[in-house]
């Protein structure tokens, strides 16, 4: 094992003479438009691995990394304001042109991606960094658009308007409404107290009760107000 590896090392030292110049271009796009982008970026550069091999980016977006020996590299654009893709570059001894593949940071290098990209390398800015968060400004309209606020306003309005509504209602409709209300309250109470079973039965019953409602409902109606009103009377005595 030792022999082949040392041979490889020897071979690689010979190969360093066969190093190639890695060429590519950054295409200006809407995210990073031409001269403006070059100006804000100041000094973006393209580098391989940890930056020993690198190149500046000229006015027209071109770059050339000179004398790249054979090997597998990660090519990245070191830019202050923009996000660029990372690429995997394989400089192979037998071929004149390097292999270019997409690379997702944090993923293992082997097996290499199946997709081969064209050479010379073409890159463009994916996004511009946005460093700031907008300040939350106060807006009365937005405040009232808040669902909680809407509910509050609605409840407030109902509290004020309810007595008048009740007053204007037809007495029969009022009876019906009161009955319906008590039923809903019953179901709600059952669910709130955790007694789901009785809650369900209340829902079930509501259907059954419908036909004989004429008989039982008035009794219930009579019962509840009296009991409610009796208590203060008792107290007064």
């Amino acid at each position, binding site marked *: 094992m030792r022999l082949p590896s040392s041979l490889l090392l020897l071979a690689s030292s010979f190969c360093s003479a066969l190093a190639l110049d890695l060429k590519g271009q950054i295409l200006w796009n809407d995210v990073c438009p031409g001269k403006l982008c070059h100006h804000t970026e100041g000094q973006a550069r393209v580098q391989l691995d940890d930056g020993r091999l690198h*190149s500046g980016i000229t006015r027209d977006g071109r770059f050339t990394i000179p004398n790249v020996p054979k090997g597998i590299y990660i090519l990245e654009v070191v830019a202050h304001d923009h996000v660029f893709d990372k690429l995997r570059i394989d400089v192979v001894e037998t071929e004149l042109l390097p292999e270019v593949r997409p690379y997702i940071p944090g993923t293992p290098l082997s097996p290499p991606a199946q997709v081969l990209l064209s050479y010379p390398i073409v890159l463009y800015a994916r996004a511009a960094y946005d460093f700031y968060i907008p300040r*939350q400004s106060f807006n*009365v309209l937005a405040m009232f658009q808040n669902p909680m606020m809407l509910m509050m306003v609605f409840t407030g309005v109902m509290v004020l308007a309810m007595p008048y509504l009740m007053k204007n209602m037809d007495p029969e409709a009022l009876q019906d409404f009161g009955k319906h209300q008590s039923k809903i309250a019953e179901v709600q109470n059952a669910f709130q107290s955790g007694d789901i079973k009785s809650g369900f039965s209340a829902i079930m019953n509501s259907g059954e009760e419908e036909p004989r409602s004429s008989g039982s409902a008035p009794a219930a109606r009579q019962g509840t107000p009296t009991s409610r009103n009796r208590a203060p009377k008792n107290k007064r005595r």
Partner: protein
Amino acid sequence: MRTIIGLWLAAFVSPLLAIHASEAGAIDWHKALIGLPLTALHTGPSFHRTEDWQFGATQSVVLTATASNVLAALHPENGTVAWRHVFDERDRVIAYKAYGNYVASLSGPGGATFRILDVHSGVLIVERQLHTPESGRLFEPTSLGIGLAPSAESDVFILTDGHQLRRVDGQSGDVQWEWASQDQASLYVYSNVVSTPSAIYLVGLAKSFASYTVHITAFSPTTGEELSSADIPSSITEGPSQLFVLSNKNKDSHVVWLQDGRIHSLRLAPDLKGKASVTKGATYKKLLDVKLCEDGQIVGIKEDGSGRVVKLADDGSLKVTWEFKNSATSKQYSESIYTGGKDMDGAPYIARVFWSNILRTASAHVLAPHLADGKGLVTGFTFPFATHTHGIITHVALDAVNPAELRVLSRLVLTTSTGAVQLWQQDQLQWIREEGLSDIRAVEMVELPEPKVVASQIANEENEAFSSRLFRQLSDAQNFPQYAAKFARRFATGSYASVSSSVASQANASVPLSRDAFGLRKIIVAATTHGKVFGIDSSSGEIVWSRVYGLGWAAEVGGRIIPLKMFVTRAVGDADGATPQVAIVAERKADNVRDPMSPMSLLPDTHFQSLTDTVVFHVDALTGADALGVSQDKDILQGKDVIAGSCVEAFLYQDDDAKFVLLFDEFLQTHIFPDTSHNYDVFTNVVRSLHFPLRSSSETTRTLTGHRINVEKEFTGKHVAYPTWTTAFPPNEDILSIITRPSSSPVASHGKVLGNRTTLYKYLNPSTLVVLTGSLPMAKAKSCGVYVLDGGKGTVLYHSILPASPSGECNVKAVFTENWLVYSYYDGELGAPDQAKSHRLVSVELYEGAQPDDKISSSELASYSNLTTHVSVYEQSFVFPRGILAMTTTSTKYGISVKDILIATDNSQIVSVPRRFLDPRRPKRKVTAEEAEEWLIQYDPLLPDDPKRVISHRYQISYARQILTSPSLLESTSLIFAYGPHDLFSTRSSPSGTFDVLSEDFNKLQLVLTISGLLAAILVTRPMVSRKKVKERWYD
């Protein structure tokens, strides 16, 4: 997808950190530096003027290459940076040449890389490697063997490596042709390239016995064909510095050199058959290039030191056109600096700048050779250069205008020995840049004292007459209406002191520095290698004070002061609470001491080339006043010689009683500064408990040796340290750095309660330290190491081997706080199936015992206890998307806030990485309910690249060297100061959010509206309810 999850996670973890656009510039500041200008001929500052063809206006910039490896352009109107191009550290800039709208540069050994930039915007137009940096030849000086000559067709002729010539297209960077000499610069070394329409000439020297001879080769500009080559009979002893090429108006070029004190010249023609001519008359000591060779002007220094302007006349003869009066060497003046410049019309001017020892001012004599009917006109003026605050002038660049006949106005750009760059317009100082700050070696942030409330006399209230009391009280009350108005306004609008506003005071120099409500304002004391220490206001970046170090006895011979460490010897809260003080421990390297009376003078040169002493400068942090009381405020700052020799280590000892610096010399003798008897008493009381590690090396191994200090004095009257333990590192491993915890880092909690109600107790042994190692240059297998050692015994608690870069360098950065170590490295290895080339960040936590709930009280253990090795280690590695240049943690007053890691990245940002991302206990599966209770998040190898965490936002902080953090009075907020060769940057960070002040986003209006709404509702419903109640009683 992964990035999206990452971003989502980032948003989830803490949405509080990012800054608002309105806060940029208010809570932070950024100062762009260019570095100390390199004052050599091809790199020093120079004016360059371009003309706008459309409008006919001219625009000028000051170009310079600097020691920070930057090519920069300054606006001469205000001194701001027009642009700067930062070169890679392996690619030093060695020459630049401006022509038209472009500036060309050569960098790297022998001029390996060639670039063309736009002279006004700094945009890169061409970058081309001419040869590999490894194959480049290193000449001394570096500017030898290179040359740039722009042609008329915007191509550039480039001489590199002393023997290669290329013609490169100025727009595309393509090489049109190239030529290399056969002998590979072994015999001929070319130093100049001259471009003429008919031929390109390389002028150089050929080695011969005892001296050099001039060698010239001519080429065809279009094909690069060698036309002719000639050795000119000559003998130059000085080397290439006395070889010039001058051109006159007729575009005739002449090679000029100094031989035996006389100027020789030779006309350049493609056939090289001309004969050298010799000027008669005076003999010269040396010739000076004043950057006017293209205008045929040069300055010759006569034997007596006086300067003469020598001009290549149109007929090709050399003529002395001017001699500067009183320029001979004299005790009354310093040595003159000659410099050349041009005006808008391209007419040349030559200035002589010198310091007058009698008048104590600087003077400039500007010669306009073309004025006064070609006889020459000299305009002289003196300007009040402050030598006590800026050292001496090392370089001058000249720009001149000729507004009226016989009237010359000039602008001078001065570079001084303390790193200042100044522009003087005649005798008016226009602006000043302190470029010495690009090389800060020691820095501290010092807390400011509270503002002094001016209380009018309270002393004799007892026996005060009624009238005087009334008067006093009235005068005290006169500010009341103002106060009441302020109070009302504050109450109504809610404009309280806020953490996101600037705390910089309005420019008012008379008020002494004092802290703001939250202690967000401090003073940054920064000691540079260029002989100056600065006090910088941390809220605005303004320089509050600066002092120049005195050289002590070495002032006679010259020397350098290199700061080693800085300690705050008196802080605001201390018992003897006057103003805070800072001690700077520095090394003074005196220049070659050659005292013929001294017995040392018999020794060979090498023994006393630089005599090193350790000096301590002690200053008041608020004013820069000498705390030793030796030097005057306006004078240079004198230090105290503490050790006659170098200092191996210095520490600050502090307890409730005293604060002093302990210094150890080469013989491990202890020196105390300040050397008071009180400090000595405290020292003798605690001497038994002091221990510290020192690096030592033998032939093959490097060791770290723990030392204690002997209780008994030696015969020298000093306590001497002795070794107690030694940790030997593997052979071929070198200690690169020792990292200890930050000196003031209070620990708020000693353990971490887990989801299952057990506790992990933090390992807080105070003597723990981190050692970073790297391979020695001769080692075969290169690797780097990280060790955590118990500094009391030398036991290794944690060890990790990291890969080195292909060139064998170790670029490991580490930060250690409480029980938490974070280190970074580049993993460039291929092999293991899941290996990826990436920057790694490893988070390591040390806890007591083998499992949760094991407790050994490590913070209080005696250093000899065996229990100190009972440690469990949790570690996890993460992929960081960027290269890491510097790393530190935030620090707060009580240590309650979460500690974030601040990282300076290779794309010129400073990023704050939350602790929660770096928790080594992040589970590698879905989080359980218990883990969710601890706020753990699932492990993801990749740390997200989130722009909202870039605390430096739009500022570019390139090649940051160090980040310093310091607590403010607010527990939530940490002050940050980052510095490097190109930038100074300061900001604040609140890793846990500003929990101790009302948030900026707090909506006071909404609160008021809600309350008033509720109030209105109550007002409306109350009568309704009472009416209803009454009704109920009536009708029921």
